[in-house]
């Protein structure tokens, strides 16, 4: 099979999977939040309200997209697209299952395995800030502009922490290829403890916190703090253009969850029972991957339903004065540990 056909099939499959997952995440979040807050939540559209996201999508599709009089039209329309594109592209490097053999050829369940996989993720997440910044600026209105200024400061700050949190993972895996990092987490410590990167606990915690901030989720949702700046950067957006920002946010939540599961929780690694027929054994790693990812998605929702929003100066102080120094110290510790393992004690 030509590489172009294979790539096309994989990309389309990945996008369809991502969009369907997003629909379910939006519904699941509303259900979980309502459960956590002792409410019923959506229950009209379909069984358990599962068609709610579809109904919302249809509503957004038929609503008028209002164009503010003082908006800079070209950038105003380009910003929602710029929000969705990096979100879709990040998912392409995440392996969702073990390689599958079909007709003697091995196919990876990952659109592409880049030598610079992790850097690619960081590069795209650093591009994502433009959508919010430009959306806020081009709306020609003050609340979106305030949201945009907040967003750019917040995302630059927490991107630094996120990048630093990933350094120990790369140090121990010895590669930035995401498939390589998953391979490094196969097997066990001792008898039964899985050899996951979660043993790099500070990195895991910092990555997760930075992930909350990067996706502008509570408790870091100052970018769209409704009690202060209406809707932040998307105040002026309506209809389909608003739906695209909404979509991008939830794809990003899934991406960060999938990345957390892949980088720290072993990805698709997990026990594959022997008694299953070989034809469906390839589904088991996908099951493990989805289970871990959805556990992190639940954490996102749980945190949102539990924690109040931070104040802006707290947010900045937390990022620059806590997370970044801690991750720098942790990198040095990890580097020393690896040096010790490789070369022995300096005095020996």
């Amino acid at each position, binding site marked *: 099979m030509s590489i172009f056909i294979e790539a096309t099939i994989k990309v389309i499959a990945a996008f369809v999977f991502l969009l369907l997952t997003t629909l379910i995440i939006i519904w699941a979040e509303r259900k979980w939040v309502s459960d956590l807050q002792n409410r019923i939540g959506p229950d009209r559209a379909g069984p358990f309200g599962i068609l709610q996201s579809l109904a919302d999508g249809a509503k957004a599709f038929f609503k008028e997209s209002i164009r503010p009089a003082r908006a800079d039209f070209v950038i105003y329309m380009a910003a929602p697209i710029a929000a969705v594109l990096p979100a879709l592209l990040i998912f392409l490097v995440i392996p969702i299952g073990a390689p599958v053999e079909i007709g003697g050829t091995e196919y990876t369940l990952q659109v592409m395995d880049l030598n610079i996989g992790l*850097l*690619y993720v960081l590069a795209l997440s650093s591009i994502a800030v*433009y959508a919010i*910044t430009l959306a806020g600026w081009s709306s020609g209105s003050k609340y979106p502009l305030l949201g945009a*200024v907040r967003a*750019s400061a917040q995302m*630059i700050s927490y991107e630094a922490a996120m990048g630093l949190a990933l350094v120990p993972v790369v140090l121990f895996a010895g590669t930035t290829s995401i498939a390589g990092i998953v391979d490094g987490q196969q097997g066990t410590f001792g008898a039964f403890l899985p050899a996951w990167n979660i043993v790099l606990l500070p990195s895991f915690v910092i990555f997760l916190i930075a992930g909350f901030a990067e996706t502008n989720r509570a408790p870091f949702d100052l970018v769209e703090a409704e009690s202060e700046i209406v809707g932040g950067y998307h105040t002026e957006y309506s209809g389909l253009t608003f739906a695209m920002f909404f979509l991008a946010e939830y794809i990003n939540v899934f991406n960060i969850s999938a990345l957390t599961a892949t980088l720290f929780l072993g990805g698709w690694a997990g026990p594959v029972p022997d008694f299953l027929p070989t034809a469906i054994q390839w589904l088991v790693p996908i099951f493990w991957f989805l289970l871990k990812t959805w556990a992190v998605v639940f954490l996102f929702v749980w945190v949102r339903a539990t924690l109040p929003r931070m104040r802006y100066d707290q947010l900045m102080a937390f990022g620059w004065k806590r997370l970044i120094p801690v991750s720098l110290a942790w990198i040095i510790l990890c580097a020393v540990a690896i040096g010790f393992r490789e070369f022995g004690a300096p005095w020996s």
Partner: protein
Amino acid sequence: MAEVVVFSIFAAVALVGAVVMVTASNPVYSAIGLLGAMFSIAVMYVMLDAHFVAAVQVIIYAGAVMTLFLFVIMLIGVDTSDVYGMRPMVQRVMTVVVSIGFFAAIVLAARGAWITGSDAFGSGDFNGTIEAVADNLFGNWTIVFLSTVMLLTIAALGTIALAYFGHVSADDEEATL
């Protein structure tokens, strides 16, 4: 074939971005033009198999530096109605002279490839993976690399020192009055 198509598209984007960056009267458009040019150059790096450099280009320049520019532009709130008057004659002449000089330098640097058809900088089998870049940085060019690190660290320290130690707080000012 595919390479030619991709190159043509992104070369055009890079050139248009560069022109927009210089000519746009609105600083936000300038920033977006520069962003487009930087991103297109990153695509060129990918086509040259320099994946690591491409990623770094996007993370540092497109991601961090340009975001900072945009942030400053928005924070200062440059109005779209700001009109910059025509530049003085001396400056325009200087611009032309420097542009021609720069173009000539590029032609000189690339001449080897243009005339002989071979790579101007030798080394036919180029490998742009992280491992290869690291081998060069920490093997062949360790001293140069570490000197650059020192330079940047000193620059950062200097900035902090200037901003921090020269600072006179409002209380101190009142006390001296």
